[in-house]
């Protein structure tokens, strides 16, 4: 089988989000970065399916030069090679991102064969557009299932489970298919030291797509006002237990 996982690099924002002076981005000077969590599960799933069925796996991202770190992280988990669509620091909207990814997928498939499955996160952790997977699927003419917490390949089809109120809805799609997944699909492994070593020498193909004018144009970001809670310190250590019970009683839950 051939499997592709599409990922996005996002900042780890910690306890409080701080914006740049022009309010068009998060000030990331003091922040670490990670792969968006839903996509990490997509990568893990891709690696597991290849471990069971054999074949090869590719990771694809559109992002700044530093996003190679997240591509290496994916390869440390077991992905074979990477494609990096290099951007400057500007935001790309969902339509532009999908168009660039579609082109990269088509050109990789032209030389290496069709991907049986393409994984996306259901939505990225930062801009949360909820649309890139669906747009790429349509452009490639493939069926798509979204928001999945269960995926199993069964012969030439894939059984997909979506969490809904009261249980799970099941879809069965023929391969090739595009799937968008959510955290909880699996528990991603920690990369091993040998895995990290191997990732360093795995190939990364780089190209630089042109950014079209956005259809969804970011004007500015706003940090919402806090909920205005004023913490009342009830005390410290075990001695605070009676005060806690009093609070629970007043809240009507005891």
């Amino acid at each position, binding site marked *: 089988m051939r499997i592709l996982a599409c990922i996005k690099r996002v900042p780890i924002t910690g306890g409080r989000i701080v914006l740049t002076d022009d309010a068009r981005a998060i000030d990331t000077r003091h922040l670490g970065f990670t792969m968006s969590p839903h996509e990490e599960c997509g990568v893990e799933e891709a690696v597991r399916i290849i471990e069971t069925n054999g074949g090869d796996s590719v990771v694809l991202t559109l992002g700044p030069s530093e996003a190679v770190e997240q591509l290496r992280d994916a390869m440390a988990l077991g992905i074979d090679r990477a494609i990096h669509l290099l951007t400057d620091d500007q935001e790309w909207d969902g339509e532009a991102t999908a168009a660039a990814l579609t082109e990269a997928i088509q050109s990789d498939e032209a030389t290496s064969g069709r991907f049986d499955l393409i994984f996306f996160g259901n939505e990225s952790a930062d801009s949360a557009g909820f649309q890139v997977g669906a747009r790429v699927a349509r452009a490639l003419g493939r069926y798509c299932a979204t928001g999945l917490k269960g995926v199993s390949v069964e012969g030439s089809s894939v059984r997909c489970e979506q969490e809904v109120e009261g*249980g799970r809805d099941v879809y069965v*799609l023929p391969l090739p298919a595009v799937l968008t997944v959510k*955290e909880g699909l699996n528990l991603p492994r920690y990369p091993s030291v040998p895995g990290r070593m191997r990732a360093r020498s795995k190939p990364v193909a780089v190209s630089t797509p042109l950014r079209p004018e956005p259809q969804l144009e970011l004007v500015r970001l706003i940090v919402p006002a806090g909920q205005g809670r004023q*913490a009342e310190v009830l005390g410290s250590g075990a001695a605070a237990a009676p005060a806690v019970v009093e609070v629970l009683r007043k809240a009507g839950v005891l």
Partner: protein
Amino acid sequence: MVLVLVEHSEANPTDPSLQALTLARSFGQPVHALLVGAAADLSEHGVSVTHVAEHVALGSFAPDAWAAILGEVAGRLSASAVIAAGTERGNEVIARLAARTGLPFAANCIAVSPGPPVTVTRLRWGGSLLEEARLHGSHALITVAPHVVPVEPSPMPADIERFTPDLSDEDLLVRVVEHVAALGGGVSLTEAKVVVSGGRGVGSKEGFAMIEELAGLLGAAVGCSRAVTSAGWRPHTDQVGQTGTKVAPEVYIACGISGATQHMAGLKGAKRILAINTDPEAPMMLNADYAVVGDLKEIVPAISAEIRKSR
């Protein structure tokens, strides 16, 4: 006019869809509703025409078919915007409509001004950050973040128009073929009146015994942070936050959780937060209503003992 996809459960419109109808009125244009499968009473919600799509194949959810129907009706009526609730289904259907039409799609909006260009305020980072954005396209596709915009009634008699959409086999291929019911048991995290939640500070899988004990005494659900699920101490179904579950209890008890923005994104509906942490400066302690400073391994069992004593 603007067209709103109204989700319903046995002909009762869902709250997020009523919120979407309220926000749709910001366009200052007639609002039409589209329902799949059954008509609902929308006479209190400012809808002038309710379109009801009926088709034998629509007994189970088929997202491409829903997108096709929405596109067909929007095209026939020259809708200037198509709007849905920012639920899993709403976002999924509008994303597919965006894919079919190449139109811009702004997900999880909390405010809209008609423009041109249409300008929205939308949620990023699970609501920890807002974005103001413009949509450049002949039509706007929008979903409305659930439980942010209050429903404002606006009585108006609505005409009901039933129709049978033309659907291709392709549009019906992706559809729900089976529903697996969740295993019952335990208090549901989304509905619990009290949630006792543990973070990395709990220290181990075994450490959760004291969290469970307190939860048991309170009839509470157990929650946790992502640090805990990543370590494999608890299943992901217990995780609270942006990529976990959003909770709305009367009291949320956060034990050894630092209060990262992605965790707090799951607590917007919590009435009161009680934080237990060794670090009085932890963001969770600063953003709580009540704080207890110290080691949760002493404090949590002491609270359980105190509850037992008081019974």
